Each structure stands twice: as C-alpha cells, then as structure tokens.
C-alpha cells in the first residue's frame, strides 16, 4: 500500500498535508481510491465554508458508488482543486497529487491528533 510517511491520515481515508503557511491540504488516500475504483465525479466544498471536524466536506463518485469525504479537523476552506471537475480520474492516477481542498485550521493543535502513516497502515489493513 502506498502510504507516504510525511502525511497525516484519518480513519475515513483522507490524507492531510501541513503546508509552510499553516494551511492543510486534503485528499483521499491511494487505498481509498483503489476501493472506490474509477472516479467519475467530484463535488467540492465552497471556498470560505466553515467545517467542523468529521463534517461532510466533499463527495467522490466512482462508477460503482458515491462516497463522502470528511473534514479531518475543524477549519475554513481556503481553496479547492477545480481541475478535478474535468478530470476526476487524476485521483486514481495519483491520489497524493490530486488534492481535493485546503483548509485553514481553527486550531493547529488538532493536526497532532490525526493518524500517522504507521497508524493508518494498520487501519487500512483491517
């Protein structure tokens, strides 16, 4: 399984990268895209939207099924990856390059509570 060591993760299969300016970038893991199969539609949140931790933030739909993507932590949406509207398959090709949205955390310390690669590896193997 492809689970980069430098990212944080959630049990619901989102990956989280902390950027230099303190914002976080969020996508779905390689394991998640593999479970879903070919993605054909991505619904992204509105920039400026305030999300609570574990709140539904985005939807990814594969040929097979629709799946919610959750906010890993509380915060405000600062950017969305609009290029996915025309090319949702980018998530299948490289789940860690094809990010979904970025957030400004309400509380930066919340990031520490997320899973590290080792913990997520155990979670994804279940």
């Amino acid at each position, binding site marked *: 399984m492809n689970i980069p060591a430098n990212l944080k993760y959630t049990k619901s299969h989102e990956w989280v990268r902390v950027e230099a300016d303190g914002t976080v970038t969020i996508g779905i893991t390689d394991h998640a895209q593999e479970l879903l199969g070919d993605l054909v*539609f991505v619904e992204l949140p509105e920039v400026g939207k305030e999300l609570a931790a574990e709140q539904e933030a985005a939807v990814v739909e594969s040929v097979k099924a629709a799946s919610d993507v959750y906010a890993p932590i509380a915060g405000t949406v600062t950017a969305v990856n609009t290029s996915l509207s025309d090319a949702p398959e980018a998530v299948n090709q490289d789940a860690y390059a094809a990010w979904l949205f970025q957030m400004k955390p309400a509380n930066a310390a919340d990031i520490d509570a997320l899973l590290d690669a080792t913990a997520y590896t155990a979670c994804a193997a279940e």
Partner: protein
Amino acid sequence: MTQKTVLNETHRRLGAKMVDFGGWDMPLHYGSQIEEHHAVRRDCGMFDVSHMCAVDIVGPDARAFLLRLIANNVDKLKTPGKALYSAMLNEAGGVIDDLIVYFVGDGIYRLVINAGTAEKDLDWIAARIAEWKLDVASIPRRDLSIIAVQGPNAKSRVWQVLPGTQAATEALKPFNSVKLGDYFIATTGYTGETGFEITLPAGETENFWQKLLNAGVRPIGLGARDTLRLEAGMNLYGQDMDETVSPLDAGLDWTVDLSGPRDGIDFVGKTALLAHPQQKQFLGLLLDKGGVLRAHQKVSTAHGDGEITSGTFSPTLSQSIALARLPLATAVGDSAEVDIRGKRLTVKVVKPCFVRNGKSLI
C-alpha cells in the same frame, strides 16, 4: 459458502479485484473498469459468466412445459438453434427470473438463468414439472462454463482461436446458436455489441480463455459488464425487476406474449397480468452534470413520481445515465428532476437504450 468458477485462480493471477456476486466469487475488474468498458465498445473483451447456469429441459413434453412456464411463446422458435429472451413469472405476475431459452432440437431446449436466482429457479421448475405431471427433465449443467466474447472484433478473434467456428457461425443471425463438438456457440450477449456467448466443458475453459488472451482479447469484469448492459438498455434481475414487479412495468412487455392460450393452456402469471395492466413506463434518463444517477433515487415528473432502478456513469457518453420506472403519461423528451444529496438536478427522459454497436443513440 461462496462458489467459484473454474477460472477463479486465473482471474486472481490476472490481477482481478474479486467481489461476491449472487453467492459467487467473481472479478469486478482487472485494473480499470472504464478501460475495460471501452475495450468492448472499440475492440473486444471476454467475460467469465460461468456463474450463470445452463439448464437443459429434455423430454417428450419439453415444448409443452416451456409453453406454460415462460411468458414468451417458445413456438416462435421454429428452427433449431434459435434463441428467445423471456421471463419466468409467478402466479401474481412477478418476475422469478429473466432468461434465454435456446431451441436445441425436438424435445431439447436449453435455458440460461441468473446466478443469484439459480437455486430458486430450479426448485420452481422442479415443482412445476411435478405439479403438471409432464414427461420432461430439468438438468442443471454445472459441468459447463460460459465465456462471453463481445465487441466489434469478437467474432474474428474467436474464429482465429477455434478452428471451424468461422464456417459454422459466419451466417448466424443474432439470437441464434450452433453446436460445434463440445462447444455451444450463441450469437447472444449483454453488451449491445456483436459477439458470442460460448458454453463449453468446464475442463476446457482454462485453455480456451488462455488462447483468447493470447489473441489479444481483454478480460472484462462484472463492473464493465454492468455499465455495458446499462448503456445497451438491458435489464438486470434484482435491480430493474424482481418477484414484486410486473414485466409490463419493467420494460419487458416485448418478451411477454399475451395472445391466446397455447395448446389450450395459459402461461403462469398471465391471468395476473391481464387483471393488472401496465402501471409504469420503463424509460431512460440522461443527466448532463452534477453527479451520478443511482438506483432507488426518486424521480419527479409533471405526471407524478417515479424511481430509478439502475443508474451509473456511462463511459461511452461521458455522462450519467439511468433506467427508471416512471408514470405512464411520461413521454420521451420530457424533463424530470432527480434529488441527489439534497439538490434537484434536471434530467432528460429518453428511450431506454443509450448505445448500440459502439454508437451513441442519444
């Protein structure tokens, strides 16, 4: 216990993602469902459909039995080899299963029934034989495998790997079959493309599959099988109809022959169908953008509500399509609305057939 076809290990070796389908461990895809879909529309692909069950109906009363068992009239099968799609109904007119019946020769027919319903079907068939006291036997052929090869180049690839098949099948029209040694080759399918469904001894399946693979035929999983059949507007049992649904409401009226009694007897379910005429229309839906139509989503029309029975993303059309049961007054060309995650999206009502022979019908 999960059942396996003789190709189970082969699928795994080819990298298939396996899933449970009707109690069978089957390949969902071998990497990309969408690429597999395009391969069938543009070139050809092969499907292990050995989970489906061939059942031979044999005996002096075989014809009389089928006249009464299924909703279409097997007397339409005048020449050996000819095939007919139809449904087996219960007394209430609900669909027990949809099936293909092949006329092999006098006193010999072959049914191909769905995997998930096979046990139920065989019990029903056995009970009807006993009840009607007919001289006929129902023989499930679990000793056989079924490989479907479909796509514009499917026939030529089969001709290439199976000597003698070109001469035997070149002149065959759709919905026909021919027996060639141990191979039963039918011009049927579930994709909207040309091709064959080949029934063969289980022991020869691996070798045949490998020959097709060597000839460049791509293995296709059940995922693409579903998007292909949906684009072709073909029903899936358990989704588009079941025992609670009349074939008349599921777009299967063309496979129901309600004309006079056959040999003085009506088929099972006919009385119920005559008492309860069609209530819904089975139509297609097209969504431009905004998500993917899915089974059980509610459809609002100017004439009342309906329901999506199958929905997916169409790889050929690059948009979402669905099959739906809609109010009788709904017409092709109407607009309707579907609720997806709280948003009401506009869909267009179309004929329930989106793609045939690689071409969009939209």
